[in-house]
């Protein structure tokens, strides 16, 4: 235990020796393909989707893309870092509430109070912690920095003490439960179960105007592409390699002189920031943020999209999240019960039998040697299985 391991070095990431193995494929072709991929994605999101889809469907797509942003973060933390976070709803909610509070205050005008506070009638003046959110210069950075700060706080406590695996997953889920109960309990200042509703304006633009809704969609699509570019750089960087190494053999990485806690913390904080940004953009797109959107159940539903798409790939989480959200809308409108069964089955089948997600089917078609192995223990699981085998056996 503690006595066995050397003291971790003070710096998180040491420079690797010169001539370290360059990550991934030959740089030139890979970069070209990535650029082509991004151009294709941009064309799809910015040109095809607005032309093909009705205003209603486009607004739905905007909502799905917000979920996809959370999924990108989960892909980093869980797929590349091995930290199953079941509480991303907390960060999504922090971002969403920060944005909604600002929009509510902006709508109420200077010195005004949000409508629901007068409705419940317990307060004579704005609570102290609402006040800074009147300024966009505070509220907008807060949508990202607030979740990151919470993730940093929890993560630095938890990872330093080597709380991990299932313990970490349960703790992150408990965080979501605590947050929701707190929000509902403080109805007078948070809107309780209803959340913050009826958000009509976005920095002076009327959100009921289809043109402005379209603008919100473009902002969301652009942000998602930017996050994907950032993630691509991150996972192909030296840090990205280290993160995968920590996932696959934390003790080995520690013995090599790195500090796994810091490596994991960075991934967790980045994922939280992405979820916060997604929450902030979700509010103008949908017009509401409420505890029902950020609790235990939505938090774990963020994860299923990632699992379906392929947790350790760049695009898998995005495509999986959009596909699951779309299927949910399409099916639950008509047969609400069937969707729940299907969702349950999706969890069971994908996670148990296809841990690499749908992305691994593509790899399966390309590489025949993979096809020879059973799905649940082959290279599709991207090293997870191998890592657990090489770890020093417990007990």
């Amino acid at each position, binding site marked *: 235990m503690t006595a066995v391991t050397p003291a971790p070095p003070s710096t998180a990431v040491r420079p690797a020796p010169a001539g370290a193995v360059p990550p991934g494929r030959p740089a030139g072709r890979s970069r070209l393909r990535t650029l082509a991929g991004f151009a294709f994605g941009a064309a799809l999101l910015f040109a095809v989707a607005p032309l093909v889809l009705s205003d209603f469907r486009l607004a739905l797509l905007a909502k799905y893309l917000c979920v996809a942003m959370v999924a990108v973060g989960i892909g980093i933390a869980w797929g590349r870092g091995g930290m199953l976070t079941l509480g991303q709803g907390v960060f999504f909610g922090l971002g969403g509430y920060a944005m909604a509070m600002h929009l509510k205050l902006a709508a109420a005008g200077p010195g005004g109070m949000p409508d629901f506070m007068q409705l419940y009638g317990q307060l004579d003046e704005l609570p102290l912690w609402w006040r800074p959110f009147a300024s966009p210069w505070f509220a907008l950075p807060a949508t990202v920095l607030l979740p990151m700060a919470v993730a940093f706080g929890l993560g630095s406590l938890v990872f330093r003490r080597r709380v991990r695996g299932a313990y970490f997953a349960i703790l992150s889920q408990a965080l979501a439960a605590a947050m929701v109960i707190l929000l509902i309990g403080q109805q007078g200042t948070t809107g309780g179960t209803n959340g913050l509703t009826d958000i009509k304006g976005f920095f002076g633009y009327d959100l009921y105007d289809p043109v402005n809704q379209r603008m919100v969609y473009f902002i969301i699509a652009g942000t998602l592409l930017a996050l994907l570019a950032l993630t691509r750089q991150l996972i192909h960087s030296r840090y990205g390699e280290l993160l995968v190494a920590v996932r696959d053999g934390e003790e080995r990485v520690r013995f090599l002189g790195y500090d796994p806690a810091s490596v994991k913390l960075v991934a967790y904080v980045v994922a939280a920031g992405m979820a916060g940004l997604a929450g902030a953009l979700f509010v103008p797109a949908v017009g509401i943020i409420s505890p029902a959107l950020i609790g235990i159940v939505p938090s774990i539903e963020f*994860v299923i999209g990632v699992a379906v798409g392929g947790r350790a790939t760049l695009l898998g989480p995005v495509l999986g999240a959009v596909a699951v959200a779309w299927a949910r809308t399409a099916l639950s409108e008509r047969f609400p019960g069937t969707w729940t069964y299907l969702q349950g089955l999706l969890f069971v089948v994908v996670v148990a039998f296809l841990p690499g997600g749908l992305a691994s089917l593509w790899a399966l078609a390309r590489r025949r040697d993979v096809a020879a192995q059973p799905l649940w223990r082959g290279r599709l699981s991207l090293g997870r299985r191998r890592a657990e085998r090489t770890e020093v056996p417990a007990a």
Partner: protein
Amino acid sequence: MTVLFGQLFTGISIGAVLLLIALGLALTFGQMNVINMAHGEFIMAGAYTTYVLQQSITGAGLSLVVALPVAFVVAGTMGVLLEVLLIRRLYARPLDTLLVTWGVSLILQQLARDIFGSPNVQTRAPELLTGNVALPGGLTIANNRLFILALALAAVAALTLALRLTPLGRRIRAVVQNRDLAAVSGIATSRVDRTTFFLGSGLAGLAGVALTLLGPIGPTMGTNLIIDAFLVVVVGGIGQLKGSVIVAFALGVLQATGEYLTTLSVAKVIVFVAIVAFLQWRPQGLFTLRTRSLA
């Protein structure tokens, strides 16, 4: 003084419910490292078993007595099915069991909705358990709470004795302490796993019967309870029962005290912060099996 004792007993009765739920988890999570999110739905199954039995057995007292063993077997059988069909394939990937069993719990919830309907249903409590016991000093204790406390303690006692004294218990402890060594000593570990899963899930069924005494039962009743129960096991330390017992009552008292001093919602946050702080001190939980592993 009365207030103090009142809060203490409220805390203990919250703890008793937690303990009854966490006991099964301590067994499955503790021995097999399986995070069974469907445990909450096994509780639900136990509760609905009571409801179904009351349709044919009119006496509330008798139905409760019958429901206890029946619910144990119903939930236990569901647990064995789950183990044989899914969990057995996933022992090497504990985090993935969490997601898979979550999917199972979604399916079971919807199944309950389709069979019994979405609205909560009510069961009848025996007259014996509806009253209060008056203690000197103006203190009253609800009978149903006392019953649950007794049931929880009886379950702990029975489980402890079974683990200590029976050959099965000896095998279970051997597998917990060193699975590989147990296997080479001739213990059929996979059969022990299945039995353990039956016992753990059966205890969830018992918890479900007990919960019918406290309020209405519904398809999502398990989800709300399961996380607190998991926290009990995490903080108590896996592999042993005594940690879970102590922590269940400690968290119950902390929750009740926090609720009394502040509000329900703030008390939940206090409990969460206390748990994170506690894990700073003992990241492996209150009691741990001594091992030489790094993890």
